[in-house]
């Protein structure tokens, strides 16, 4: 980001050392946008981004999906954001709050945010601390259909000290809160003045932000037009107009990228089967970008057969990951042992390497007492090693992978039947209340750069057991629970590192999910689109759209 241009060429390690005692890894630079001192170059040109899903939710705090954030990042700003290396950088905040700069108290309980004083909303009104206060309160407003309250519900005594400063107290230390704030866009208080039902405020379909691009218009079902915000407080924007075009079919999206109608392919990107061909297109740049989504076979640990660790280990040995990646996913994704993306600072590279070995798998099951029955399917104490595997019906690649795995498992005397369901059924109670045996699924257990996966691995996070998270495999390991409790209250990355490495180690050993691979996206754009940068810590391409330009 722009911090680099300011001469702060620190690598992660130096940054961490320098800010060792601070709550956040950050580069907190006052006068962050030095470029502003120079005359701003006028934005020019247009970029057409193709999305295979239609953004329809423009209030960033209502329930929404990934593609909606494509618009949010262009129109709004959070207090601070995260760059691809996992460093926080300030946007609406004058500096990222840290323990070192007094933004966060040493115990993580008291927060103080200083804001920029030169920011205006798109309608010309000044941005102040009242807007931040309003946003944080909106998220926990009982009448508002807030998409996420995690972290925000711990905020107490939210106080506006001055138009550029506010403070609050946290009910308990919650280290991941920084990551939540980094994806919390600030919305204008005045847009909700006199609005009775905030769920249907006019603002929700005509958003007013502080971002590099202003809302221009939307043709429902077709496209959205955004135009440059000439008064943007930071560097950029460099493009006059951004068009987000909805192209529902991925083949058609790719075709329009080939014909040149689309300048940049956004969600769901270029399909893996077009990767090779895309690389040969003239005048196009094709890149693989890592994302934080991990494909796995998730197991329901409550099922009698999966309670036996030997079964989980044997199944993992019978999983020919590389063959699935190469034959079905065109070699695009990378195999992994962890739920944590490789790009993360907290990634544990020393986890035991998976070995595809049918004989070993059989030996493990033999030793554990699972003996083949009359039909060749193993049994033990009256329990047959036979289970269902489910995923979203119609997902061709997954369905092929399932059939491949089914064959491998049969080789070791395990019966896996395939029972796929439409998405609305699959991801309803069937998933949430752990009604499945096993599921092939891509999960994103982390929020931005934060390493805390409590919602997925804590024993208190299983809805089937009355919990509130998404620990649908009903995984329970007291040691993992304790580690995550500890890590969530620590604010120093070096101190958190060994904890989350250990969590990965334990999860790898327990195998509530058989990790298959980390997804990679095939991203494509015209060669003259500059400034585009993949970011593992953000799920959408437009996170730095303010930096994009046409050469």
């Amino acid at each position: 980001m722009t911090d680099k241009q300011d001469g702060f060429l620190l690598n992660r390690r130096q940054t961490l050392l320098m800010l060792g005692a601070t709550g956040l890894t950050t580069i907190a630079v006052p006068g962050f946008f030095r470029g502003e001192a120079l005359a701003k170059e006028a934005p020019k040109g247009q970029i057409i981004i193709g999305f295979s899903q239609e953004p329809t939710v423009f209030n960033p705090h209502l329930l929404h999906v990934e593609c909606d954030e494509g618009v949010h990042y262009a129109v709004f700003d959070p207090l601070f954001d995260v760059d691809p290396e996992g460093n926080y950088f300030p946007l609406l905040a004058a500096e990222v709050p840290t323990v070192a700069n007094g933004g966060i108290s040493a115990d993580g309980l008291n927060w103080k945010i200083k804001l920029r004083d030169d920011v205006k909303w798109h309608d010309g009104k000044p941005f102040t601390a009242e807007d931040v206060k309003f946003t944080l309160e909106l998220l926990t407003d009982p009448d508002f259909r807030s998409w996420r309250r995690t972290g925000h519900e711990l905020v107490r005594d939210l106080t506006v000290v001055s138009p550029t400063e506010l403070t609050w107290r946290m009910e308990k230390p919650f280290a991941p809160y920084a990551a939540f704030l980094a994806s919390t866009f600030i919305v204008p208080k005045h847009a909700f003045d006199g609005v009775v039902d905030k769920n249907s405020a006019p603002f929700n379909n005509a958003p007013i932000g502080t971002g590099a691009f202003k809302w221009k218009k939307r043709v429902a079902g077709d496209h959205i037009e955004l135009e440059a915000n000439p008064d943007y407080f930071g560097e950029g924007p460099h493009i006059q107009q951004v068009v987000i075009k909805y192209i529902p079919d991925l083949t058609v999206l790719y075709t329009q990228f080939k014909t040149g109608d689309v300048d940049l392919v956004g969600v769901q990107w270029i399909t893996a089967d077009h990767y090779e061909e895309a690389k040969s297109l003239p005048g196009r740049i094709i890149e693989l970008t890592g994302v934080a989504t991990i494909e796995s076979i998730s197991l329901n640990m409550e099922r009698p057969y999966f309670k036996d660790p030997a079964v989980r280990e044997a199944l993992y040995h019978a999983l020919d990951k590389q063959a699935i990646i190469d034959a079905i996913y065109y070699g695009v994704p990378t195999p992994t042992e962890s739920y944590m993306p490789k790009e993360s600072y907290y990634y544990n590279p020393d986890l035991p390497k998976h070995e595809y070995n049918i004989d070993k798998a059989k030996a493990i099951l033999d030793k554990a007492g699972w003996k083949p029955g009359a039909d060749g399917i193993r049994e033990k104490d009256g329990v047959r090693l036979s289970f269902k595997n489910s995923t979203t019906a119609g997902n061709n690649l997954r369905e092929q992978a399932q059939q491949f795995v089914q064959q491998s498992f049969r080789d070791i005397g395990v019966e896996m039947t395939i029972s796929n369901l439409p998405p609305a059924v699959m991801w309803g109670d069937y998933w949430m209340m752990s009604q499945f045996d096993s599921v092939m699924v891509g999960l994103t257990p982390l929020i931005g750069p934060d390493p805390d996966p409590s919602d997925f691995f804590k024993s208190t996070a299983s809805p089937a057991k009355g919990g509130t998270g998404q620990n649908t495999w009903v995984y329970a390991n007291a040691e993992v629970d304790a580690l995550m409790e500890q890590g969530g209250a620590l604010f120093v990355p070096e101190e958190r590192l060994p904890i989350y490495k250990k969590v990965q180690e334990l999860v790898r050993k327990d195998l509530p999910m058989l990790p298959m691979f980390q997804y990679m996206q095939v991203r494509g754009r015209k060669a003259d689109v500059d400034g585009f940068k993949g970011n593992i810590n953000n799920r959408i391409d437009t996170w730095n759209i303010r930096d994009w330009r046409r050469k």
Partner: protein
Amino acid sequence: MLGYTLRRLWQSVILLLIVSVIGFSVLNLAPGGPLSQYTLTPGMTKEALDRIAEQMGLNRPLPVQYLDWLWRLVQGDWGHSYRDGRPVLEIIAGHLWATILLMGGSTLLSILIGTWLGVHTAIRRGSAFDYVGTIVAMVSLSIPTFWFGLVAIYVFSLKLQWLPAGNMFTVGDGSFLDYVRHLILPSVVLALVNVAVWSRYMRSATLEVVNQDFIRTARAKGLSPRRVLLKHVLGNAMLPMITLAGVQLPALLGGALVTETVFTWPGMGRLFLDSLGYNDYPVVMGLLMFSAILVLLGNFIADLLVAFVDPRVRLD
């Protein structure tokens, strides 16, 4: 006439009620629901989803939800989309315009060509023209629109670069000519199938009429073949076509899903698929009621028209 209209109207209301009950039940009784698609969103919890379901009133008993919906509908409130919160009627109207453009263009094309082809293959029954016409119609009926659309894009957009690869208009242009340029490929692709349908119907209708006694009489009177064709054959052969057009009206305004997808045309077909995919119940119900009304209206108009042009039919 008035009695007939009132009777039809009364029947229609009952029918619409039945359709709405069935539609509402099927939608809501299917497992899952409008919120399950958000399950895999990072940071999503069951607690959050349950709370939002409560706030949206999705936890109320189904009959209560239905009566609430119906009561609002009677008052003219078709509800709001779960996705973007806009009024359902406004959303339908927005997509209807795109569909009318596409379907209007292609239907006009297919009726003109189809009628011409049908009549000529019929009066020259057994000729080479008839055979070729029949084969072409069969082939075009069998070609999947998706494939044909992509081939058309490949040839005319990618290779020849004559026409745009899709979309309804160029962002920032939107002039009449721009619309026409964008309309050509999708409407021709769509018309191809419909030409086949229309020409087959027209051919058999014409054949039936051509063999009637009054045509022989007309010829025996010494009328020119052209006059026989235009006045006697066509006039009578067109009658079943009116009914066909009436039945086709809802299909016409229902949009052409495949063509709309290939050519990224923001019409009714895609709206229906998207709304179903996102379990956007208010919009799906709105579309269901809208198309049910169209079916009833289309049939009613067709009946009136037939009664008007065919003296043998009386409505009471």
